[in-house]
């Protein structure tokens, strides 16, 4: 479903991503972990079409990506952002945020779809006409997930979707994402610095360090500590210390 081959991204004369390759099969879930500045979010933004300055080969749903995007691709790939406080337009109600993708893509039946989507992400119907400042962080992230899923994409990019939330809400959102993936046969690509979060949601994990993907391993191997590379072992040790 997602193929990334020899992806290279430079910001100025600084190589941020150097030859990353991995692939995710349809319905799979792949997590990218790494320290801050390792280039993991940059990879995701290139796949999202938010950064056109990349070299290499990207393919989503069998279609190689070019520099421009077509409407079909907009529909197939959606993203949930890290900060639920910054990812909702402050002057638009939940209703407006959810109807915008439908209007842009000419999908009809707006009212019914919004009501269904709200119940799918377990938001009360009363939240429909609220502004973001009237919602809690967890509710906002549910709105962001609803907005990403309302145009029925097949690939969902998750950029640290729980890191801005407190721990009890994190678990709710992770469970919601797990359920939605099962219901809708979604392919997930998730970026996080929290190994526990990635392990909860993803079957395979890629470890990035300094712009390179140093190791790809299964979640079981990661849990059991069967790591090949020192960077992975270090991340794992750090994560165990934190918990």
């Amino acid at each position, binding site marked *: 479903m997602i193929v990334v081959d020899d992806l290279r991204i430079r910001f100025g004369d600084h190589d941020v991503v150097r030859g990353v390759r991995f692939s995710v099969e349809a319905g799979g879930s792949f997590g990218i972990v790494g320290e801050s500045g390792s280039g993991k979010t940059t990879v995701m933004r290139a796949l*999202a*079409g*938010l950064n056109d300055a990349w070299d290499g080969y990207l393919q989503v749903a069998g279609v190689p990506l070019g520099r421009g*995007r077509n*409407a079909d691709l*907009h*529909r197939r*790939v*959606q*993203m949930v*952002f*890290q*900060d639920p406080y*910054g*990812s*909702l*337009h*402050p*002057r638009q*109600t939940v*209703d*407006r*945020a959810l109807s*915008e*993708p439908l209007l*842009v*893509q000419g999908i009809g039946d707006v009212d019914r779809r919004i009501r269904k989507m709200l119940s799918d992400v377990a938001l*009360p119907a*009363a*939240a429909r*006409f*609220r*502004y973001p400042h*009237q919602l809690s962080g967890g509710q906002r992230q549910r709105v*962001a997930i609803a*907005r*990403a899923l309302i*145009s029925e994409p097949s690939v969902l990019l998750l950029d640290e979707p729980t890191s801005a939330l407190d721990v009890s809400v994190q678990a709710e959102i992770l469970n919601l994402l797990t359920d939605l993936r099962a219901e809708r046969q979604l392919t997930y690509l998730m970026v996080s610095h929290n190994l526990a979060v990635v392990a909860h949601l993803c079957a395979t994990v890629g470890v990035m360090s300094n712009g390179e993907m140093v190791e790809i391993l299964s979640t079981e191997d990661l849990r059991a500590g069967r790591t090949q590379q020192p960077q992975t072992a270090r991340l794992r040790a750090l994560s165990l210390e934190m918990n």
Partner: protein
Amino acid sequence: MIAHLVDRAWLLSDSPQSRAQAALGSAYRLWCDFRANGPAFLGLVVVVILLLAAAFAPLLATHDPLIQNLGQRLQPPSADHWLGTDELGRDVYSRLLFGARVTLGIVFAVVVLVAPIGLAIGCIAGYYRGATDAILMRVTDIFLAFPRLILALAFVAAIKPGIGSAVIAIALTTWPPYARLARAETLVLRDADYIAAVRMAGASHRRIILRHIMPLCLGSLVVRVTLDMSSIIIFTASLGFLGMGAQPPSPEWGAMIATARRFLLEQWWVPLIPGIAILVASLAFNLLGDGLRDVLDPKQD
């Protein structure tokens, strides 16, 4: 629906049932914040009174503002002439009312011309960045470099003295700060995640600018425009005072001071009254602008 407009509970409802209710509710909350600010509310009241005075000047005036009566010149305020008469025996109160039309007319003509232009240029420059930004901002810089009064004088000399020339001169030198303001806001907003989200949904640049970025720039623009209105009022009066704005016999506050300044020592009330009108009007717009800034400007949160 109309009945709901006076229903506080409906407006402040925690779970609005429609977009209209949500929008009205948030407008009502803004209004409550604004009303709590005493000086700003006073400013609004004065501005509304000025607008009403200008709109209903023919009904409110006690005399024709243009009729001269040389037997009654330079009268002090009396029951017949509430604010006295000028050097040609015209009723100052009536002239003041009709002068409000000229002043507010110029102010609103300038704002209507200038605000959309500044907003559009600023948003486009900030959104596209790169060459578009460079070109638009250099054009803005060129206009910013014009000295306002000299440009106005040049216009008046080149075309003809009058309200039209004054409006054009003020408009040409007023829009650049709005463009810069809108650009600065847009530069920050364009990289926000919620803009990235609509971009990923496939929205066109036009749609993103018009529907998602511009509404967020409006708040600070409205504040800035309101604060600028007072300087436009003073500038209009200055042009009138120099004889470059509204032409006699049309009543204009600046021109009224100019012709009456010879009597400043003996009949001091004749130039003083239009001076007070200018002061009150510009002060009212300033207070209103300050109050709007407290309510609308997100940077204060």
